[in-house]
């Protein structure tokens, strides 16, 4: 295992590997192990590149080394009443990597991991404003910076986000931040079917009340369905919007209000982590992105699956019998399906990532060649 302590050391590991055509397997805290195809290669751990480089609360910006534990970042931001806008979810449990696996910020960026607030404040890629990385030739490169408006040259910041370490090894990342809301509340409805739930969520998201989370659990702990809408912000504002939203949702049932900050925050953390499917052992887990009103169609096409909806219905998490070819069942519905968790054989057979359009796949392949000419970085991770 290589454990470089700084960016130069990362570059030298990669240059040596490129010269020897030896493939490398890049890892952070291993909390997302199993997401993507298995990679053969000498492991390189980035946990040695740790620590906050620059934090300016007055400018809402953070620069941090890629191997820094997410927990450490959250704590530093909380001290200033700030947060990462995209609510990075913890997937260690659902991926079966143990609750103690420590997510690093580099892993969050490499997987573009975004939680329920994605529909309101954007994905990880939208908050990411700068990257430093080492490409497959061992060049140390940067793009973007530490300011939130930057159109100087191509936006490789977004490109690097979600590439699962296949285009370069991230060494430092910068984010724009948001103030942590001083108040949070969940307005919920019970007993709605999927169709009604998505209609209610669409109504809420189309309202002027700044809904920052919209999820639907078809079978909650009491056996009934639960549809949740989150409001965040200044205290008076949240209570005003909650009252208005409840009035608007009245036709869908009897909206309930939960204002216990701890409970609300725990519930949405659990939505991001897809805890609703955590007990589905032995089944494959899929993460499917469609336009919200297609959510119920996805569920209908996957009869027998345990599903749960985030992002107003647009993100469908589904647990299905191992080996089910979900993509063929969803033919005709625009979007993409990721085989989030399955054994190696089924990942190999079905493919983890949704196949790209052939023209785009060709360009992606050429791009990989430009960034990693010896094909040594996480070879085969994305299929």
């Amino acid at each position, binding site marked *: 295992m290589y454990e470089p302590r700084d960016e130069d050391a990362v570059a030298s590991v990669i240059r040596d590997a490129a010269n020897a055509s030896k493939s490398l397997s890049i890892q952070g805290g291993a909390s997302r192990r199993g997401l993507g195809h298995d990679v053969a290669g000498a492991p390189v751990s980035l946990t040695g590149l740790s620590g906050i480089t620059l934090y300016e609360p*007055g400018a809402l910006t953070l620069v941090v080394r890629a191997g820094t534990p997410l927990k450490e970042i959250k704590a530093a931001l909380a001290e200033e009443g700030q947060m990462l806008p995209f609510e990075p979810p913890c997937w260690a449990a659902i991926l079966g990597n143990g609750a103690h696996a420590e997510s690093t910020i580099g892993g969050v960026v490499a997987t573009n991991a*975004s939680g329920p607030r994605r529909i309101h404040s954007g994905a990880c890629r939208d908050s990411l404003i700068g990257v430093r990385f080492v490409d497959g030739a061992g060049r140390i*490169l940067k793009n973007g910076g530490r300011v939130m408006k930057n*159109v*100087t*040259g191509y936006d490789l910041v977004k490109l690097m*986000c979600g590439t699962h370490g296949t285009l370069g090894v991230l060494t430092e990342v910068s984010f724009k931040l948001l103030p942590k809301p001083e108040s949070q509340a969940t307005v919920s409805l019970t007993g709605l079917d999927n169709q009604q739930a998505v209609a209610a969520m669409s109504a809420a998201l*189309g309202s002027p009340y700044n809904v920052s989370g919209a999820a639907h659990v078809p079978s909650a702990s009491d056996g009934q369905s639960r549809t949740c809408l989150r409001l965040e*912000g200044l205290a008076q504002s949240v209570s005003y919007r909650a009252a208005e939203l409840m009035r608007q949702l009245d036709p869908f049932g009897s909206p309930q209000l939960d204002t216990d900050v701890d409970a609300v925050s725990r519930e949405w953390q659990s939505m991001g982590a897809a805890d609703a499917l955590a007990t589905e052992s032995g089944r494959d887990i899929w993460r499917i992105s469609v336009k919200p009103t297609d959510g119920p169609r996805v569920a209908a096409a996957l009869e027998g699956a345990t599903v749960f909806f985030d992002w107003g219905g647009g993100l469908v998490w589904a647990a299905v019998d191992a080996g089910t070819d979900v993509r063929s069942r969803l033919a005709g519905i625009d979007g993409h399906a990721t085989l989030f968790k399955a054994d190696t054989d089924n990942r190999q057979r079905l493919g983890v990532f949704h196949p790209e359009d052939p023209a785009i796949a060709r360009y992606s392949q050429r791009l990989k060649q430009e960034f990693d000419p010896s094909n040594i970085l996480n070879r085969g991770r994305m299929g």
Partner: protein
Amino acid sequence: MEMPVPSGQIIARKSAILDRFLKVLPAEAVISEPAETRVYECDALSAYRCPPMAAVLPSSTEEVAAILRICHEEGVPVVPRGSGTSLAGGALPTADAVILGVSKLADVLETDYDNRYIRVQTGRTNLSVTGAVEQDDFFYAPDPSSQLACAIAGNIAMNSGGAHCLKYGVTTNNLLGVTMVTMAGEIIELGGAHLDAPGYDWLGVICGSEGQLGVVTEATLRILRKPEGARPVLIGYDSNETAGACVADIIRAGVLPVAIEFMDRPCIEACEAFAHAGYPQVEALLIVEVEGSEAEIQEQLSRIIEIANKHQPAELRESSSEEESALIWKGRKSAFGAMGQISDYICLDGTIPVSALPETLRRIGELSNQYGLKVANVFHAGDGNMHPLILFDANKPGDLEICEALGAEILKLCVEVGGCLSGEHGVGVEKRDLMTAQYTDDDLDIQMQVKDVLDPQWLLNPAKVFPLASSASRREATTRDTAARSDSASAAA
């Protein structure tokens, strides 16, 4: 400012190339008379002009593809153009280039309120996207100052921002999908009404690529429900430092206004003389706007005013009516026009970390004295996006050159304090040769390698974004190819 020498071989084949265009486009969509190509000789960076060899105005994605296929085969450079409002020279042609204008592609293709998106052709103007949904109380958030005229195609090319991006983000954060034609004439779809991409985030790199990677003909854009109301407050301070400190404190306090605009004295005076907005005579003026219901507006404003008062403002004026709000914004929104009344100017758009605001303003003042040209500052303070306006006299020989030299120094200063050359206008030709101040050769090379993938012959808007010296080997390889092709064509003839 230097542009590549136009290829005589291409210009010599002009009529053969036009004949091919006329096989795929109606005659009125192919413009080649010198009197008419003049219209396309520049964009809003009007100091630089050069009429193109021809301009074409296709009416469909298929026509765009047909034109690009021809240009690809003929080795003709193509400069895509939206409404021509680029302040960076993004749509400046060369004499051997074809301007591909998307102005005829202006339709709304689909509106979906349940899923909160609109799909439009990209020649549509920014403001008319909102215009298509505002009767139902929705809007499209990015609002560049030129929104009345600028096209979505240009917004995507430059990743345009606006005054309200502190809350709503810039174009890339509101763009869900595109239909794009590559230089080879291949039509590809990226993204759509759903979120995120299955593989690499091509959409993210297309947005802001200044028309160098493809021609975007259709876009799926996120639309949002309009807030119940909005209200600005006007805060004046006796120094730029105090105003800067107030901005940082507001941001830090956890209130996130939709906009924080900053004007310095030279700008305030010009705006006041032009728009009579009733601005106080102070050193620095902030316009802070918040949104929401009446109660929410009150709650946010009271916190902002409390913070502002700690810094002892010379003036603090809360709008109490729609008319007063409009007046407060009128001054700010007419800033560029007001400046245009008193002088020629160039407008920069470097971004700096908000914390470096006082230092940057002080050093801009020093540079202004050193170069002997006035600089007025108006900018989006919440996100650090500066807009220094350098005043000069276009009729005075040498003044433009001094102005550009001062501009370059100011932009280098922005980079030095931790910022960047361009926050929302793009690089174009204007800042092309300054790119080495922000990026190493390797940093630039990896970006050019992305263009190598999508446009290996470097035919799309080739002389932009990268310093000419950096892109020379790539561009010249194409010129050699073209020459070889033209030789073999004449040999065959």
